[in-house]
């Protein structure tokens, strides 16, 4: 959603750390230029450097965190590309194209609710930190299938976090769409000092339901949601945000080939027709998406 143009480039980067974080893998590599330029919500096209044709193409991977010259990524090994990335060890090299995409627009005001689903949490640690640094009140809501994924919540340092798992093996039990309305209502009603952790109580009716535009006017301030996760989660979230008059930015997933707007392969259905996740996204206003 940012407009200012920062040129991307191709880099060959040595891996300096590779460790498991539950069922995910955290990989850090040296990439000074990327670390200097990347903004939250931007992504990289990444593959193991070298001649092997398996996998053939790089994969889009969000920037998880930056630390001086280092870029960190968090990988969920699900297929050909991510399994190969998760297999990288210290000393191996990565081919990295980036930073790419628009990233989240951080210029809004009001409290920020950062919502992640599964590996969608990966780019949100950097985002949450950046939002805090801008002085915004930040609260995080992270949903996972199981505990093995949910331990990734530890990567969100110094953040106020609620964690949910579908099987209840860590944090609250259920999908994040259940606590979301309550958390939103709280954030919009008062300051962070009033916020209580929704984790644990599957309160559907505990917080009064609001009736769209009219209800919103009654709150102190509009919250803004920043989300990344499975389509179904983002669609549900978009509806809830609309109900609460909260703005929402969503980072959309798509299979990519070029990453730079050339191949038309990564399009997302929006209210204005197909738009490319790589060059016109991956972050879109929730209201733009044709869910």
């Amino acid at each position, binding site marked *: 959603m940012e407009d200012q143009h920062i040129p*991307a480039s191709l880099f060959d980067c040595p891996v300096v750390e590779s460790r498991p974080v539950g069922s995910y893998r955290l990989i850090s590599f040296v990439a000074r230029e990327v670390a200097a330029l990347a903004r939250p919500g931007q992504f990289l096209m990444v593959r193991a450097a070298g001649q092997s044709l398996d996998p053939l*193409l790089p994969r889009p991977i969000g920037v998880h965190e930056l630390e001086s010259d280092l870029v960190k990524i968090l990988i969920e090994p699900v297929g050909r590309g991510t399994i190969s990335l998760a297999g990288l060890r210290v000393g191996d090299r990565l081919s990295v194209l980036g930073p790419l995409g628009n990233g989240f627009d951080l210029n809004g005001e009001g409290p920020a609710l950062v919502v992640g689903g599964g590996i969608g949490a990966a780019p949100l640690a950097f985002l949450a930190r950046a939002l805090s640094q801008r002085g915004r009140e930040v609260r995080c809501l992270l949903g996972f299938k199981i505990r093995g994924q949910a331990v990734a919540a530890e990567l969100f340092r110094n953040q106020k976090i609620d964690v949910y798992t579908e099987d209840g093996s860590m944090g609250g039990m259920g999908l994040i769409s259940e606590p979301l309305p309550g958390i939103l209502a709280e954030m919009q009603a008062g300051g962070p000092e009033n916020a209580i952790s929704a984790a644990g109580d599957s309160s559907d009716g505990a917080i009064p339901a609001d009736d769209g535009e009219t209800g919103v006017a009654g709150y102190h301030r509009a919250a803004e949601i920043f989300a990344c996760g499975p389509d179904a989660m983002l669609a549900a979230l978009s509806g809830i945000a609309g109900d609460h008059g909260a703005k929402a930015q969503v980072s959309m997933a798509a299979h990519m080939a070029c990453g730079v707007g050339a191949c038309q392969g990564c*399009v997302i259905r929006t209210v204005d*027709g197909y738009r490319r996740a790589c060059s016109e996204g991956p972050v879109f206003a929730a209201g733009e998406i044709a869910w």
Partner: protein
Amino acid sequence: MKASLHTSLGPLTLDHPIINASGTFDVIEADRILEADLFSDFPFAAYVPKTVTLKPRTGNEPPRLYETAAGLLNSIGLANKGIENFIVEDLPRLAELLVPIIASIAGESTSDYGSCAELLAGRDEVAAIELNVSCPNVELDGRALGCDPERTARAVSLARAATSKFLIVKLTPNVTDIVAVAQAAAAAGADCISVINTVHGMALDPWTLKPVLGHTSGGLSGPAIKPVALRAVYMVSRALDLPVIGMGGVTTAQDVLEFLAAGASAVAIGTASFRDPLLAARLPGELRDLMEIRGISSIGQLSGMA
């Protein structure tokens, strides 16, 4: 010995034999997004923009891409802004390129080929026209017009009547006899044959076991199809007295060498640019090295060596 990479494709003179494959490289977008100054430092010896059609097309339902073993399935479906917008918005910008522009056009009917060729006939920026009769993602049965020698010939004749520009016909490998289609195109007035467009294929989502692509099936590109492409180049270049542009899975300078040896006069890079965006910039130098080790001093000497 210093090998020369200079070559020609009909009236087009090329600094080296490596061009891009339509639909896989967008110089305007790439120049905007990447650090490189692509207009003044363009890696390919000619530029082939994405195929355009008479009317704008939104393309097929996503997902449109899926990686397979050493290959890429796509079902873009010729998403493009339409030839009028291409002419008005893109051509003036593309004219800044220092290399020839090969416009690629496709029709939803045979007659569109004539109409599109006519619209380009008077444009000096356009050095040559490639007729894409081979996209597997346009018609619902996946059958490209280029599957039929007669329909191919009709499309070529209409374009030929509309323009005297260098006319390239890009064929599909999804046929029983690609030489027969090439011969039909040649008889109808083609100046050059491009082979190959993508190979028809499909993939299922590993979890849902439903087709991954929104369009169900798609076109396979990349190293997986190199043997199919190399054979098409070899067969077509032997059977016809026209220059051939070879493509399909070209990923290394060695591949370029092989396609030239198989009979191509120029070689196009598609999927491999996704794998390595700097590949095109390196290829000419690497190709020269490979030629020199083998004592080959010119593209002409290499062409058809196989």
